[in-house]
């Protein structure tokens, strides 16, 4: 198959690529929608269970961590209009999933969407890709880099998102990001000074840090490593199903 495709013309490669894509288009993503609401419901339910002493915070901590790690993917589907496109009957559901799924991550939907679309437009471009700061020489460096990017005086990370939003002229969305971060910290401080500091740390603060590290590692660093090329077929490791088409295009296929 690969040998045959090596000599295939560009229009034929494109046609074959579209055929593969078509197999995945048009199905309603029930799994993502269920995942979004179930994941959020589990995380929210941990709070009353732990604060009333029904559930040990040490049992709730790994569950909350999983919830934060798992909350990004449904939002990603919404960012790409996969649940419903503008004008569709279920568009409200797409937007609802986008808005609520990343609450544990404290990542507003519009911030995620605008910066993620910029990432796709400019993948691995050092100046324009808001996620470029996640690139690192290896797995441990990627984890350490992700932690460093969240330090108060760090460049890149959330600051790269702010720069991207400013470039897009979306100061309104920047304000949304700032207010959501402030709200998160006010909730943490109120809980902490009300006698629930350990609970707040183990249900939200620490799971959020672990979740961010996981998401950056698996969904940002790993798919693009070593992130030294730009352009379609060059900037991202891709699907198994597309292997022969990608091989014909001389793409990097290590790790898939």
């Amino acid at each position, binding site marked *: 198959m690969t040998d045959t495709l090596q000599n295939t013309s560009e229009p034929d490669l494109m046609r074959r690529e579209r055929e593969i894509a078509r197999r995945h288009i048009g199905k309603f993503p029930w799994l993502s929608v269920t995942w979004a609401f179930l994941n959020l419901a589990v995380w929210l339910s941990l709070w009353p269970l732990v604060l009333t002493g029904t559930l040990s915070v040490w049992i709730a901590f790994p569950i909350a961590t999983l919830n934060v790690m798992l909350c990004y993917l449904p939002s990603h589907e919404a960012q790409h209009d996969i649940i419903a496109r503008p004008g569709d009957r279920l568009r409200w559901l797409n937007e609802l999933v986008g808005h609520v799924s990343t609450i544990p991550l404290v990542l507003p939907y519009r911030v995620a969407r605008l910066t993620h679309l910029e990432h796709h437009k400019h993948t691995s471009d050092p100046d324009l890709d808001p996620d470029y700061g996640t690139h690192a020489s290896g797995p441990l460096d990627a984890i350490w880099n992700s932690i460093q990017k969240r330090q108060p005086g760090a460049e890149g990370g959330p600051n790269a998102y702010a720069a991207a939003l400013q470039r897009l002229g979306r100061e309104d969305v920047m304000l949304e990001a*700032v207010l959501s971060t402030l709200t998160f910290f006010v909730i943490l*401080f109120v809980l902490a000074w009300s006698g629930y*500091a*350990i609970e707040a*740390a183990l249900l939200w603060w620490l799971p959020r840090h672990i979740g961010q590290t996981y998401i950056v590692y698996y969904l940002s660093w790993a798919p693009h490593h070593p992130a030294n090329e730009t352009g379609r077929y060059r900037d991202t490791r891709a699907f198994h199903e597309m292997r022969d088409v990608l091989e014909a295009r001389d793409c990097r296929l290590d790790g898939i």
Partner: protein
Amino acid sequence: MIFVIKTIFNFGALVFAFGFITPLTMQIITRAGIDLPFSLTPLMAGLILAAVWGGIAQYRGRWI
């Protein structure tokens, strides 16, 4: 409003230290039943840790 928000973020490390690390330290010490030296109370220990660690983080721009 913008000035207030910018100021909070500019002193973010110290705000986080006194807003979260102080009560967290207090509650860890209390729940673990740790006896503190020099007649320190858990609140005093929390405030000292927040001032030192938060101050360093504020100055260096990183916690670790």
